Every structure is written in structure tokens, then in C-alpha cells.
């Protein structure tokens, strides 16, 4: 027999799941530290690729200078500078990522709390019927 209360509850839950809830559930399946670490690592990879692209453009822009002065340039100092800038950018971007993903994790958890409450309620409705 159809149970009105249960259908209402399930509709609400399914509607939540379809409107961003699934994404939150995916986030909620991680521990906080794990989720943030994975996202920060992904961010570091992204920023490394972006830095690489920027570096290639920089080299191409100054290609003629590099080719002319290749023996005059202190390559070690140049590499140090490149790595220093890379480090600063990665750290800054990592901190921003950490903050963004900490916020999104806590937001997802907060939103899931209500979903889990509904789940408990649904469970009790099934139990009552049984």
C-alpha cells in the first residue's frame, strides 16, 4: 500500500539529491582532511601546468634573447628564480585552495545533515510499518 508520508519524504530527498545533493554526498563520503588534501593536490597539479604554460610563453617571448645570450646567462641563478616564483605561486594557490575547499566541505556537511535526518525519519517510518 502507498504510504503518503513516506512518498513525500522520499520525493524531498530525491529532489535534494538531484539538485546538488549528489555532489555533496560525494564530498561527504571523505574525511575532512582527506578531501581537502586531495583537492589541494589537484590544485597544485593545476597550478604547475599553468605555470609551465606561462613559462613556455615567457621563453618563446624572449627566445631571441635566450638564443643570443645563452652562454652569458647565469643559468643557475635563472633556474633559482624560476623555482622561487613557482614556489611562491604554489604556496599562495595552495592556501587559497585550502580555504576554498574547507569552506565547501563544511557547507556540504551542513547540507547533508538535514538529508541524513530525513533518512533516519524514513527508516523509522519503514520500521513503524513493519
Amino acid at each position, binding site marked *: 500500500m502507498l504510504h503518503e508520508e513516506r512518498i513525500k519524504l522520499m520525493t524531498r530527498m530525491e529532489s535534494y539529491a538531484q539538485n546538488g545533493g549528489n555532489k555533496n554526498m560525494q564530498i561527504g563520503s571523505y574525511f575532512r582532511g582527506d578531501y581537502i588534501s586531495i583537492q589541494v593536490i589537484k590544485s597544485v597539479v593545476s597550478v604547475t601546468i*599553468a605555470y609551465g604554460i606561462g613559462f613556455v610563453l615567457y621563453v618563446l617571448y624572449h627566445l631571441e634573447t635566450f638564443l643570443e645570450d645563452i652562454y652569458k646567462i647565469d643559468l643557475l641563478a635563472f633556474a633559482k628564480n624560476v623555482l622561487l616564483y613557482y614556489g611562491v605561486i604554489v604556496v599562495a594557490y595552495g592556501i587559497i585552495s585550502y580555504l576554498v575547499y574547507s569552506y565547501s566541505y563544511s557547507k556540504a556537511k551542513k547540507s547533508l545533515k538535514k538529508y541524513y535526518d530525513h533518512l533516519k525519519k524514513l527508516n523509522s517510518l519503514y520500521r513503524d510499518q513493519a
Partner: protein
Amino acid sequence: MTGLLEIKEKLKLMYSRNEVFIIPIAKFLLAFVTLTIINGRIGYMSSIDKLPIVLIAALLCSFLPIGFIVFFSAVFSLLHMYALSMEVALVGLCLYLIMFLLFFRFSPKDSLVVILTPILFAVKMPYIMPIAMGLLGTPASVVSVAFGVMIYYFLSHVIASSTAISSMDAGEVTAKLRLLIDGILSNREMVVIIAAFAVTIIVVYLIRRMSADHAWTTAMVAGAITNLVLLLVGDLVYDTNMSVLGAILGTVIALLVAKMLEFFGFCVDYSRTEKVQFEDDDYYYYVKAVPKLTVAAQTKTVKKINTQSTTVSSKANASGRNSGTLGRSTSASHTVGSRLDFDPSDSAEDLFEDLFEEDDFIGNSRNVVTQRTVYKRNADRSASAFRRNNGQHGVTINNNMNDDMAEDNDFDYNFEELE
């Protein structure tokens, strides 16, 4: 005004019932306009500068996720750049990739802003963007608007230097790259616009969030003035050759558009018909949840409690935005009868959370209907109205949906919410 609000309610009703058609059509139109502008402005590759190709791409965008409009736009612009010169396409690809890698991981939804900003530049109405994003977005929108501005100026630079690029020899790779990169990095007008837009977005956002009367209107006017002043100062300092008359006219138009946005965007909850499928041990359920909206204006009473206790009745507008309506009168068929403990020191967010503890859905097994009684922005405004008023003379606002409301001088309020 009531007439306008009723039109708004009717539009919402129409939207909620026909959302399944309206969204694909809107996506199709946006994609079509974007690709047509790209083809019309850049158009170096004649094989994709054809109506059937644009129509096919726009049709694909109409049912694919909205990010595909951005994807198709990027592909079309890169193909045109490639037809002009491979180096141009390479620089364009690098620019897009850097933007994608650095920013759109965080907020993929903002990608639409990157499309809309160049489009508004193309139709000479760019000043709408910072005000609109300040009203509807967050400070993070600064980055997406800045990327949009950069893309517009990059494409403009490509178009402006197309003759020079095509006249260069194929061997002059570095010269072409230098020409393009210099075009982006040394464009003062672009820098001034990015800075002005960024400050405008933040100013509009901060004022819009303030708990003051007419915060939205104040925000948009302040934003428009800030934007205009910064553009003029930037023009004077960096000699960007900006059209002053164009900036003033553009700002006035931006204000009008922002006012329209306020009308449709403020206190909005475009509840929509939802179709959900789920199952339990006994049944498969295919549920269509239809929003239960009313067009009729409601009446509410504002009750002031101070030394001169007065009761003011007012005909409320349908959205209940000017006073602290916490709920929205709808044709109720089901009483929830829950009690909310409301403390004026609660943040709007808390209040919203509390209110949403209530059931939104009412109905039966055949027709499950959804009813959104409380709106976040409404709650935002209500909370600020409560805080503000309580600080002065202690005002409670009764939305006339219940009789059982208690108040005392410690500003503890209990509401009976009737759905």
C-alpha cells in the same frame, strides 16, 4: 507596483510550469548569439562561419550542460585564430588553459560570466556586468569578470592586428607572439577597466549585504558612481582614450538594467516542476512535484510595540519584501504547526536554516506538490529588519497567518508557522 508584482508572480508561474522548454530555448539563444557574434567579429575561418554550423552547435548547447556554451565558444574562437595564424591560436589556447586551470576548478558556474562579459562589451553595454555581479554574485566574481574583460581585449587585439599578423612571414614566430603578448600586457585601458570593475563589484556586494533600507538600490547607484569615477580617473591618469559620453550613457543603461534585475532577482525563488524517480522494496515511484504558487496579493499587519503602541495595517506586495514577512501566504491544505524560536541576534543564515527545518512539500500520493514558503533573501531581509528595528524601538512583525505570536521586551519571538 502591485500590478507589476502580480505580473512577476505570473511570470514565475509560467516559468515554473514551462521550465522544461524555457531553459533549453534560453541556452540555445545564448549559444546562438555568442557564436554569431564570434563569427561576425573574428570570422577568419569561412568553413565554420556558416549558419547551419552555428545552428547545430547552438542546438547541441541547448540540451548539454551550460559549460558547453563556453566550450563551443572557445573552440570557435580558437579555430578562427588558427585560420589567421597558428601562433595566435597557440597564445589563445594558453590563455584559455591558464584561466581554466587556475580559476574554473573553484567555480565552474562562473564560466558563463566569462562569456557574457565579452558579449556585453560587443553590444557596448559592459558596465552592466560589474553591477549585476555585485548584486547577484560574490566577490569571487571579480576574477571571472576580469577574465571576461581579458578575453574581450585579447580578441579585439587579434582583430586589430590581423592585417599585421597575416603580413608577417611564417618564420616570424617570436615576433607574432611578442605582438600578441604585448597587446595583452601593455593594454592600459584593459587594466583600468579590470580595476574599476573589481572595485565596483566589491562596493556593490558590500552595500547590498548591509542591513539598511533600499540596500539594493543604494548598492547599484553607489556601484555605478564608483565605476564611472574610477573609469574617468583611470582615463585621466593613464590616458586610455575612453569615451566619457559612452561611459556615462553605459552607466545609466546599466542602472536601468540593474533595477530590472532587482525586480526579478530580489526575493526570488523560481521553484520549478521537478520530476523525480526512486524506488523502495515494493514500488517504483515516478513523482512529478509541481510548485504551488499563488498570484493573489496578501495582507499583513505590522504591529509596533513601544511607548505609543500602534498597529499599522498595510496592503502588502506579493513578495513581502519591504517588511519582515517571514512566510508567504499560500493556499494551505496541511498544517505543520511548528514553532520557531527566533532570536534577533541570529544571523539570517541561522534563521533561514531554522525556517527550512519545516516541511516544504505537501500533497498526496497522486499529486505531490511542493511549496516553498520561505525565501532565503526574504529571511535575510527579515532578519536585518528585525535587528534594525529592535535596536530602535522593538518591532514585531506579524504576517497575519497566525494568531499565536508572543513577544516580550527581551526580544524573544515565537512564531507559529502555518503552511
